[in-house]
């Protein structure tokens, strides 16, 4: 009763008519072109505020962090929209980001420097705000700059999704015992061998999940699979398990096809920088295999197909059926060529292997194949001796002159940069002579 008295007594003193405009730090009275653009692209459609003007209270206290340059804001946020938001809308529905999103981006021009010598490129707080650093060195035409920034958002956004729907506790059992607070001191190779996709993933299961998901999105399947293939066998099992947990999580929690989302992210990145095939070849990098069946392929070049058919006829005369060939791109510039063939009845399948040195110029994308003088031993390699004379024309095609590596989408329209995309090796002396195959790993 006495409290009521007090309230009443105060209330009677008059209405509150304070004008707090001068005290409220967030009122921008003179909106410039950048403010208006942010309103139109983030605030109005998604109810996401972007704060680029320096506000010490939005940043870690006691740290010296410089603000962004105004002209860096729109280029950075364009990439946030195109590489982060749009793919989620494509895979999760037009209102996905409207429903679950951070409410605020805070932009910082520099990095945050930590006492352990590392620098922080992004942080998220309670699903509400994401701080993006190093905006001043951002370059929207530089793919690594774009990847670095969006990686941060994908990582932090995974946390936000996890705060909405938790991931399965079994996830943390996959790399049990590998979590390590002192992650900066541990090498990447060790992280890989324990089934972590990055060093930072070792901090905790929550960070592991965010690293796993964000790296799969940003690397794309080609690169991710290629990295997984280079780690020890038991770690491969762990990484594949984690991949499956992530895919299942997106499906069950949000009804999102993770691989579709991953593809949309890659397509957005391809707009920043179109995928270059010869930079996507090799273990740990991207594609490791090319598979071709010239007899059924729609568009092998006349010269190559002619040689293939001659070889096929010769094989038939020898009592074999030539099926297809594959190239495997290995470490140390080794390419293993494999022909697959059967006996006349088609009941037994044989492989014939030969190792070549693949001298790829990573700048021009031009390569040669030179048969290695010392071949590994084993049945598949000795099989090549059996059919060598019959395959001579095709073998000679591979080892003669040089090839320029590129997609074949000018001849056979199709997607580039994904698993199953078609890659071709064009003779540098005559671009209408080539062979192509399905790129995979």
């Amino acid at each position, binding site marked *: 009763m*006495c409290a009521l*008295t*007090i309230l009443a*007594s*105060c209330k009677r*003193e*008059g209405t509150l008519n*304070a*004008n*707090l*405009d*001068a*005290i409220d*730090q967030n009122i921008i*009275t*003179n909106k*410039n072109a950048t403010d208006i653009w942010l309103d139109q692209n983030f605030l109005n459609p998604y109810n996401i505020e972007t704060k*680029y*003007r*320096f*506000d*010490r209270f939005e940043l870690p206290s006691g*740290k*010296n*962090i*410089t*603000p*962004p*340059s*105004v002209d*860096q804001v729109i280029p950075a946020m364009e990439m946030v929209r195109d590489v982060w938001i749009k793919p989620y809308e494509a895979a999760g529905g037009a209102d996905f980001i409207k429903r679950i999103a951070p409410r605020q981006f805070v932009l910082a*021009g*520099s*990095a*945050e*420097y930590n006492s352990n010598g590392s620098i922080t490129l992004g942080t998220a707080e309670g699903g509400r705000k994401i701080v993006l650093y190093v905006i*001043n060195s951002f370059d929207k035409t530089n793919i690594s700059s774009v990847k670095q920034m969006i990686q941060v958002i994908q990582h932090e956004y995974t946390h936000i999704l996890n705060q909405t729907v938790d991931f399965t506790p079994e996830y943390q059992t996959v790399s049990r015992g590998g979590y390590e607070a002192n992650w900066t001191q541990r090498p990447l190779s060790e992280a890989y061998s324990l089934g972590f996709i990055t060093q930072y993933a070792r901090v905790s299961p929550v960070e592991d999940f965010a690293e796993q998901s964000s790296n799969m999105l940003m690397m794309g399947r080609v690169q991710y699979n290629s990295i997984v293939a280079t780690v020890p066998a038991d770690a491969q099992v762990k990484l594949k398990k984690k991949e499956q947990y992530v895919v299942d999580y997106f499906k069950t929690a949000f009804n999102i096809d993770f691989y579709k989302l991953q593809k949309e992210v890659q397509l957005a990145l391809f707009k920043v920088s179109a995928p270059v095939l010869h930079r996507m070849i090799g273990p740990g990098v991207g594609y490791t295999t090319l598979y071709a069946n010239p007899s059924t392929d729609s568009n092998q070049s006349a010269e190559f197909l002619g040689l293939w058919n001659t070889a096929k006829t010769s094989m038939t005369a020898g009592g074999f059926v030539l099926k297809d060939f594959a190239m495997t791109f290995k470490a140390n510039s080794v390419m293993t060529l494999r022909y697959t063939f059967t006996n006349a009845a088609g009941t037994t399948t044989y492989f014939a292997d030969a190792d070549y040195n693949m001298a790829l110029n990573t700048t021009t994308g031009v390569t040669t194949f030179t048969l290695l003088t010392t071949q590994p031993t084993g049945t598949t390699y000795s099989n090549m001796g059996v059919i060598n004379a019959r395959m001579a024309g095709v073998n000679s095609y591979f080892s003669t002159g040089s090839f320029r590596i590129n997609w074949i989408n000018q001849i056979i329209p199709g997607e580039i940069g994904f698993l199953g995309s078609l890659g071709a090796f064009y003779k540098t002396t005559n671009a209408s002579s080539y062979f192509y195959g399905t790129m995979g790993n």
Partner: protein
Amino acid sequence: MKKILLYSLLSLTLFAACKKEEVLVDGQRPEERITEAVTKYTNALTGSTTGWKAFLYPDGGGGYSFYLNFSKDNKVTMYADLDIDPAQTSKESTYKVRALQNPTLSFDTYGYMHILADPNPATFGGVAGWGVYSDFEFTFDKLSGDSIMLTGKLLKSKLILVKASQAEQKSYNEKGLLNSIMTQVNYLDANPNLYIQPDDSGTRIQTSFDYNNKVFSLVWEENGEVQTTSTGFAFTLTGIVLKEPLVYKGKNISEFTWDTAKQVYFTMVNGTRIEIKTSVTPILPLHTILGVQYSTITAPNATTYPGWSTDFQTRRAAAAAAMLAGPYALRLDRMAFKFNSIQKTMVLTVDIYQGTSRFVGDFPYTYTKTTAGVFKFTAGTPTGNAALIVGNMVPLTTQRLNSDNFTIGYFTHPTTGALLGQFKSVENPGFTFTGALQ
């Protein structure tokens, strides 16, 4: 019943307290006072239509000048004396006067001022995480006449704004700052030995402009010791301004102006014009700055050299021959004399080669020095490989360095023009030798 009474009394008190608060001390609500303060400072900043000359003295040292022009729509354009580009190309960023605990001027997007605070050392050097320890948010300390004094919020750097004249604004917009800096830097590079003689005694006081770190120093000799006083400086359209006045015997020096006609710096002290003079040789005697500016005099591997007397050459040759004839067949190479003016020690490091393998022998000394600059070296126990050549070195050490008094002065290499340091025995004036100063 008692309790009810107590509560009633309490509520009465509170009621009274509420009521009392209605009367504001100065008749203004807090938000009104803050609005007024923010408006006052914003108006002050935008009030100078010809902009402001700004002098920023970071907590980390040095000084930097800016030209700032604040617009009413929270934009600010800048020039700065940080580098060639900032001095000639204006850059626009934003600012805001904020009502934090105190009214605060926040340069809230990246402009030239932030370069100093940039935590990435690749931007402007300094320390990772901090740059050169500077601020870009300041609280207003004082508005006085045409000046505004501010203090950095994070690191307490000092910022002073002074209204620019129309002529100054025009100059900044026509590369005046860059031209001023280039003229001065070229002069400073061409004239490494600058000094003033501020009083009738004729004492030469070295003036040192470290324009990379923006530190200005006065250096002079007093009773054989070097005295130094330093402060930050910033370039202006007409010269340099010091962070705070440097005092020499009661004379305050707070700026230097470049005299375009006479091509000299000058400053006014109590109505008297003091000019900076140039010298071909260093201003201070070598003995005062051994161990301070230069730590080592290195005599090269040679049989003859400019400034080496016949006596030294003979004695060096004798030592060299003895070593070579010794059981290890050692070849005498260069000799370095390294001074520590605080410990009053000097170490003679002798390079000796056996074939192509280099070994060193250290001969440690302590020394005393008179105010006139006469050194007396006292030998300690040779260490390391020095033991192998102690006997061989006698003509140079025991017979001269360990026993004589020495003066150490400048010597100019007659062909290269390089400045060398020269030892000269007081007792045996025919014993002199030189070496490179480092």
